[in-house]
């Protein structure tokens, strides 16, 4: 039996998620023994021609060229898995979706006329069918291995979509909200990191994007109760997953122009 082929693609992103694959140091040989890594330019300049059995797609769509390129990637891929917040929610660059991109380019670049970019940063699923979205900024190493392993044997990956709080309690953390009044996005955030930040006495920053059924109004109420100002609440949801619909809703429930009253 031929080994299945794997391709890794990059769109608008920082490369951190791809590097997670290289980060699988101990398992990398085992992966290479089970899959033909046909295209992974971070690791090798050798590119084998498609089609590919599995494509891992990193990054968001921010240019007209990329909007075309992702279609070709889709056509060449039997299974397409997006990795990371950029590919699954538009990334931090989706902040442009709430602003005027021309104004940005005029302020940032000496020759804005050299810049060819779309007005928005959008997730891969806004352009082509996606078979599986792996969340995180960056993605979690164990979860990436789990997805690859599950695809290899043809089973459903064990990637729960419930809140970070599940992992937080399973890990034995003390809840930073209840015990310290620290703001935490865990209740509305997709599990996957293993509740890393609460384990280090910090609130969750929402790296893994929205959980399956986030309750925006209740979460904003929780953040207000910790004394967070409305503008800070908006900012808390305008990060790596700013473009995720549920986080947009969360940022809209808060009232950005109200200052803290004390």
């Amino acid at each position, binding site marked *: 039996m031929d080994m299945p082929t794997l391709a890794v693609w990059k769109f608008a992103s920082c490369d951190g998620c791809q590097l997670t694959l290289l980060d699988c140091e101990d*398992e990398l040989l*085992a*992966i290479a*023994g*089970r899959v033909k890594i046909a295209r992974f330019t971070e690791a090798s300049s050798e590119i084998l021609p498609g089609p590919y059995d599995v494509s891992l797609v990193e990054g968001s769509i921010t240019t007209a060229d990329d909007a075309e390129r992702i279609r070709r990637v889709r056509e060449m891929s039997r299974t397409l898995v997006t990795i990371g917040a950029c590919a699954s929610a538009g990334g931090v660059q989706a902040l442009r979706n709430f602003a005027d991109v021309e104004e940005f380019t005029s302020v940032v670049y000496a020759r804005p006329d050299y810049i060819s970019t779309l007005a928005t940063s959008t997730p891969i699923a806004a352009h082509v069918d996606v078979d599986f979205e792996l969340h995180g900024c960056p993605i979690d190493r164990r979860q990436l*291995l*789990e997805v*690859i*392993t*599950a695809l*290899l*044997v043809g*089973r459903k990956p*064990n990637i*729960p*979509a*419930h*809140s970070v*709080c*599940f992992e937080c*309690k*399973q*890990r*034995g*953390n*003390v*809840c930073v*909200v*209840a*015990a*310290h*009044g620290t703001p*935490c996005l*865990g*209740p*509305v955030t997709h599990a996957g990191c293993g509740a890393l930040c609460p384990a280090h*006495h910090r609130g969750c920053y929402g790296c893994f994007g929205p959980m*399956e*059924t*986030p*309750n925006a*109004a*209740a*979460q904003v*109420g*929780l953040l207000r*109760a910790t004394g967070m100002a409305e503008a800070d609440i908006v900012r808390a949801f305008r990060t790596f997953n700013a473009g995720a619909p549920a986080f947009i809703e969360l940022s809209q429930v808060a009232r950005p122009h109200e200052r803290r009253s004390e």
Partner: protein
Amino acid sequence: MTGTATPAPRLIDIDGLPALFEALRGRGYTVVGPTVRDGAIVVAELASAAELPFGWGVETEAGRYRLRERSDTAAFGHSAGPQSWKTVLHPARAKLWSADRVTGSAGTSIVETGAAEPPRYALLGVRPCDVRAIGILDQVLTGGRHADPVYRGRRDGAFVIAVECTEPGATCFCTSMGGGPGADSGFDLALTELTDGGDHRFVVRTGTAAGAGVLADVPSRAADEATVRHAATAVAEAAGHMGRTMPTQGLPRLLADSRESPHWDDVASRCLTCGNCTMVCPTCFCTTTEDVTDLTGDHAERWRVWDSCFALDFSYLHGGSVRTSGQSRYRQWITHKLGTWHDQFGSSGCVGCGRCIAWCPAGIDITQEVSTLASMLEQAAADEDKP
């Protein structure tokens, strides 16, 4: 256990605690008990008595928990923390088995490895509500035809040292649930901590022969009648200081009749479906299964992981989840816990420890929700009676 006269209570001085640890360890137990970590009193393995939370108390409210310094040196002057003994007896993750595909001269075979030898824990400082919670888990996980092997193993090997309550917390309501701050069964040893007059000591009662054996190895003296009465009075008075009350009259009926209550909308507007309430609850026992394979495909493991009725996957049947709304998930939780648990296991699933109240990040209070459901039904009935 039965048929023997209850031995007279004894007194252990605070200096006797190290000997208690020695006696337990000498019998092969790992001692697990309360200790301060990250701003809370958690349940953890204890290396020595010095790790107990001497001088620490807690203040709890809905969605809030704070450590506070006590004016005395009590080690057990606190109500329920973020963990219960479930974390020890019914752990969040447990490997059920693993299997390897081995290819040799005889062809390919599957070699299965069962669970490891269960650890033996001495649970030190089990509050009376939690003694009852362990009893409920016993019923759920070992009372049927197929005992849960992980729980069974850990439970059979466990030694239970209850510590009665003299200061219930603001979120406690064990008396409403038919329990109380005193322990009368379900333990090997039961302690009542006294610190008055700067004299830090424990009244100790024996529940089992194993308990008597351990106690025999700890320096103790006969408890004088006045001290025993003093301890019993402190515990009895605690029953009058519960921070919460649960209206339990006809509770299963109330929940059944509230199936279509408009109040579920109100709860769902506040509930994050985060699952914390079920994780901290000492009797919530639901788990899911994770099958894990490695990259070679030659090694497989089956794990059991805590689940929650607040997860969508929990009610996933072919084609989708049954309980998608927050309304239906909160209703499921509270209806099972306080209502249908009676039909299924012959008791309520709630012991009134108050954990779900204190550790709900949204501050949702199970006693308050029940009161509201009750008054809404009453109101509806009154409206119907109007001509």
